[in-house]
């Protein structure tokens, strides 16, 4: 269908102004939300991902496409929920207390948006209590913790312990990342997932689905 192709194409161009409008138009035309998601948006992001892997696109081009995806999802998500289509999920993400590095965290968040997730970004210097609160309110599938300092890495363990104490640990998967974080550290503190970079973070998240 022409319109779906156009959406996919504009998504690949990172046209975050028109993609949500075109998505709305598709809904008005009566195309099913599930089809718009799979045949236009996800299809478009797949092309972007493939071109990125072949070095034809650079990261900023992937991120602007992700921005278009996210804009389309704000239009589409309510309809998907109405029609009972399963969406990618929700992730609460933040940089732990006393740490204000956020470039990596933002990048990870944007790529999750590109993969169709709803991303709730708590910002930087986020205390354990705020993560717990956000899990309670938003009921995310995943909590993503970022730390770039050795001095703040122990905060990740603290967040996990607080989730246990609040009785919420079973309801959510915890992913951790940041330059000094390692696979082993992630295991030691009882996290469910770790990834060394943004590109593999989404893939990892997909394997964590409950």
């Amino acid at each position: 269908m022409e319109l779906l192709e156009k959406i996919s194409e504009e998504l690949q161009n990172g046209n975050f102004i028109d993609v949500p409008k075109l998505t709305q138009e598709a809904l008005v035309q009566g195309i099913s939300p599930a089809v718009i998601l799979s045949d236009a948006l996800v299809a478009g992001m797949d092309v972007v991902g493939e071109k990125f892997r072949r070095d034809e696109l650079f990261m900023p081009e992937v991120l602007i496409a992700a921005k278009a995806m996210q804009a389309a999802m704000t239009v589409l998500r309510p309809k998907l929920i109405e029609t009972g289509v399963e969406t990618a999920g929700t992730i609460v993400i933040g940089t732990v207390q006393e740490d204000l590095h956020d470039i990596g965290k933002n990048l990870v968040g944007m790529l999750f948006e590109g993969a169709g997730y709803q991303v709730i970004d708590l910002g930087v210097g986020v205390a354990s209590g705020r993560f717990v609160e956000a899990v309670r309110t938003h009921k995310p599938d995943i909590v993503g913790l970022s730390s770039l300092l050795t001095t703040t890495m122990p905060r990740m363990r603290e967040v996990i312990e607080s989730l246990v104490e609040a009785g919420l640990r079973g309801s959510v998967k915890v992913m951790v990342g940041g330059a000094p974080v390692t696979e082993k550290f992630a295991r030691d503190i009882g996290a469910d997932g770790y990834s060394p970079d943004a590109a593999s973070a989404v893939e990892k998240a997909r394997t964590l689905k409950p």
Partner: protein
Amino acid sequence: MKPTAGGQYRPLTDEGIRKIHDSAMTLLSEIGVEVHSKLAFETFQKHKAVCDPSKNLVKVSRSMVEDAIARAPKKVVLCGREEKHDLYCEGKNVHMGTGGTVLNVIDLETGVKRPTTLKDVRDIARLCDALENVHFMVLPVYPNDLPPEDVDLNRFHSSILNCSKHLMGGIYTLQGTLDIIRMAERIAGSPQALRERPFVSFITCVVSPLKMDDIYGDILYHIAKAGMPVAIPAEPLTGATAPVTIAGLLAGLHAETLSGVVLTQLVNPGTPVLYACTATSTDLRTMGYVSGSVEMGLINAGAAAMAQYLNLPNYTTAGMSDAKVVDAQNGYEKAVTDVLVALSGSNFIHDAAGLVEFASTASYKQYVIDNEIIGMAMRAVRGIEVTDDTIALDAYRRVGPGGNFLADPHTILWMRREHYLPKLSDRQLRINWEKAGSPTVEEKAVAAAKRILKEHKPLGLSGELKDSLRAQFPGIRP
């Protein structure tokens, strides 16, 4: 040490510099800086900056910046504990040294990467004390074996014991910073003596784009109050926390570091402050931080030019590499960025020794190799001296047509001064090199580092002073 002046390389035109400066003034007065430190915010407010407390926003006018620049010292002397190590940060004088703070080190014995400990703080300080081309030490590593509350004081204490060059360091807590100042006052003899010859100084930071953090804002406030020297770097990264273009990044950097300079001069006029840049570029494929790009050299040379325009002593970055091992990439990235920034005439070029892998890992052998690269870069900075003596018409007269200069007195007189003699580079004939076991630079560097660590005796402190410091600061480790 007689300062060596650079400035031969200028990546910006006068017009470009003015345009970037004007744009930075627009950023500060129109967009403003988000100031999360209460102490800093109140200081700006008290001095009638346009403040919006609901957004923590401070707009700094051009005249406020100009007042601050007028008050800031045009010359900052960062002293060593021995005068021969004093650094005259002014004009286009060039000094190069180490950087940090990193968490891992390539072990000298095993060659394997492992977490750093207090022993590494000590050993690297001793190594840097002995390396003649490393002009100062920015405390390079983090002691992972200490509890966070003891890190600041012990990092400085161990470094003071092992290195008598100027010590500048990042800090983690306000208490730690104040303890370091008190400890340094004891060592200097009095608070006054430390201000006269500050042998320690600090690094805080402004977060790009245009944001002053609460903890680092508070720490900066207290350092200025104490009248200690401080560098206030911003670390904008192209395409991530700054525009992807170098001029755009420089405008933001200029605004950010100047917002810190303004704060220090409002708190305590005359505070010795360094305009500072740790900016670099990102890799377009991942948007990850990279440290050895040629753009990083351009950016930091540009930052030096911006500081020189305002006559502010400056701190920049060069000589890093993204390579994980000692290889060609390691060499060319370090050499190219070192030379660009050194020739720009920057006063305090840090990170230029000892770091590999995105400036995230220290390496003992790398300090020795970088000592060599810095030696060559500094020789380039010194340039070509032209006098009657160096043109040496008299020597030509002695030698005459067809002769040689091999054993002429002029050769003997000038050779050491004119030529940098590398210690690691191989210049032997192949046959001799093979006879010597075909040694590589890396092998020679490892051997040199081991020898220094075994033999070098630093200045240290008297036993009595050491004991009394321990009594005053029980957190100090043996």
